[in-house]
């Protein structure tokens, strides 16, 4: 499409996301901590919207976390990525959708570096052929899974059973959105809205009735920092950065935080628990925390899926205050059931942070 004038200026911040036919690659962290989110991404895109999202059992980790912890060389990381591209090519797809921001950044970094240094792409092709006897085409389009939910936010709004509105007051819910650094800080043109106006999550929140909060540390890192979380001795870095964000957003009284990257919701959820245990401080109302949801979980609630099917029981911060505000029904006794509604032992309770 050819744009002119103001349209041309804004086109730099927009993405023309293909409508259909995606090769899907999963996220190590989302599968481990938010499995219901991945399940519902497919349920929404495939079953509800009828999109073709293809998954092969042969895909693996992209190696992104090992790469950003400096434990594997760049060429190892790029050849793992090239193998994913080969699986996509063999399956007959041209568009790749990743369920993880670290992966999305890793795929973008690989493609952009090859674009600038074609000799490196040639070397990786040789590595992949020698190691796996595979060849590949570079994807025509790489999306993060949230790009698709953003693209179809209007269709989701049309099918909404619940809105991001306080049922008791009729006021929009106050939403904090957290994009995740590797979505658009490295390659701004790859993210919806770029690094300056990222709207992948705010677009969803507003389409579903919420009001987005702009607070001072809105774009600050969640504090993952790869080695700064994974090594126990470094976790002070991780928690300090999350703490900085919570102190900054607290005066705006958010009802919920929504996140793009699969790691960020883990840190924004769990460090609230640790801050409450170590400092006795909670950031939500009446001793609760601020619920932290992934975009698929939020879309799932809007569409009326059961909160415990979405996996919201795997969060440490209780989500019930949000469900009550939205008017989403839930069965408290079913929260911690196992497979086929089997009764299993319930989790222990935090000392300070209120849970339902």
């Amino acid at each position, binding site marked *: 499409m050819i744009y002119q004038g103001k349209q041309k200026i804004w086109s730099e911040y927009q993405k023309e996301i293909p409508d259909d036919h995606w090769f899907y690659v999963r996220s190590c962290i989302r599968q481990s901590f938010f*499995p219901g989110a991945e399940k519902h991404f497919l349920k929404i895109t495939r079953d509800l919207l009828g999109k073709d999202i293809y998954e092969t059992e042969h895909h693996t980790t992209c190696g992104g976390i*090992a790469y950003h912890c400096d434990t594997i060389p760049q060429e190892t990381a790029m050849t793992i990525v090239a193998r994913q591209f080969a699986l996509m090519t063999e399956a007959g797809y041209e568009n790749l959708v990743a369920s993880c921001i670290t992966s999305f950044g890793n795929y973008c970094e690989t493609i952009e570096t090859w674009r600038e240094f074609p000799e490196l792409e040639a070397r990786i092709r040789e590595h992949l052929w020698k190691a796996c006897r595979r060849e590949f085409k570079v994807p025509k389009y790489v999306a993060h899974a949230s790009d698709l939910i953003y693209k179809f936010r209007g269709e989701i709004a049309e099918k909404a059973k619940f809105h991001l509105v306080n049922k008791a007051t009729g006021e929009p819910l106050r939403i904090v959105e957290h994009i995740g650094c*590797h979505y658009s800080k490295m390659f701004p043109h790859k993210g919806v809205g770029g690094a300056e106006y990222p709207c992948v999550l705010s677009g969803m929140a507003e389409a579903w009735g919420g009001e987005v909060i702009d607070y001072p540390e809105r774009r600050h890192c969640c504090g993952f920092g790869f080695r700064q979380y994974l090594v126990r001795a470094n976790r*002070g*870095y991780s928690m300090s950065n999350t703490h900085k964000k919570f102190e900054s957003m607290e005066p705006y009284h958010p009802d919920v935080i929504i996140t793009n990257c699969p790691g960020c919701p883990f840190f924004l959820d769990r460090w609230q628990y640790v801050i409450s245990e170590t400092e006795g401080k909670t950031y939500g109302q009446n001793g609760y925390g601020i619920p932290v949801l992934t975009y698929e979980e939020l879309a799932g609630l809007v569409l009326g899926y059961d909160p415990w099917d979405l996996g919201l029981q795997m969060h440490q911060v209780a989500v019930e205050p949000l469900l009550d505000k939205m008017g989403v029904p839930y069965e408290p006794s079913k929260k911690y059931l*196992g497979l086929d509604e089997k009764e299993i032992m319930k989790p222990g309770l935090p000392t300070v942070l209120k849970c339902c």
Partner: protein
Amino acid sequence: MGKLYEELCKDYRFKEGMHTCINCGTCTAICPAAEFYRYDPRKIVDTVQRQNDEEIEALLKSETIWYCGECMSCVTRCPRKNGAGLIIMALRNLSIKLGYFTESEKGRQIYPLTRVLTGNVLKLGYCVHPATYKYEDHPESGPVYEWVLNNKEEVFGRLGANYRGQGTGILREIPQNDLDELQAIFDETGGTERIKLVEEASRKKAAEMGMTPDEYASYAFTHCSRGHFNSEKETL
């Protein structure tokens, strides 16, 4: 131009990240690490661009190159399109290649990180997986995740995962043929050589420190001396 600087110039992240630094300090202002750690990306980029091998060697043996979280917030904001985070990745890579990483407390953490992460990638096909995520190493994951880990089949099964099953799906077992391909990629691209190098240098340092490799890995994973943070009076 010194030899170490020449080595850095071969790294594509260095080629992408090192142009001409004007010392404005924007990277330091935006940096989440600089706020808490005694870390100043502006100084690091400036040191590197002086191309002095003695200074670069000191940097490769220092704590400071390990403070960055690789969030890449600096990449967005640099008015000269440098990437301090990318330069850090190149410095860390060289520090590991030359065995200098064992000279600093934060550098020594590469040993437990390599063991866990490359172990997960090569044995499971995942970087992170509940099968190797231990609650005792991650008490911050809370009582709810302790419950998940104690009931993996039940909880993941209830949420529609294909936990360690065949075929597609959440947390499926990656077929052995695919794991073999990952191993072949590591062998071909220097990943396996890197693991051996880290293992050998770390074992040597462990012996110097009077520890077994396991004690050394555990100490590197858990010990944090005072003096890393801006808020502390002590210096390292």
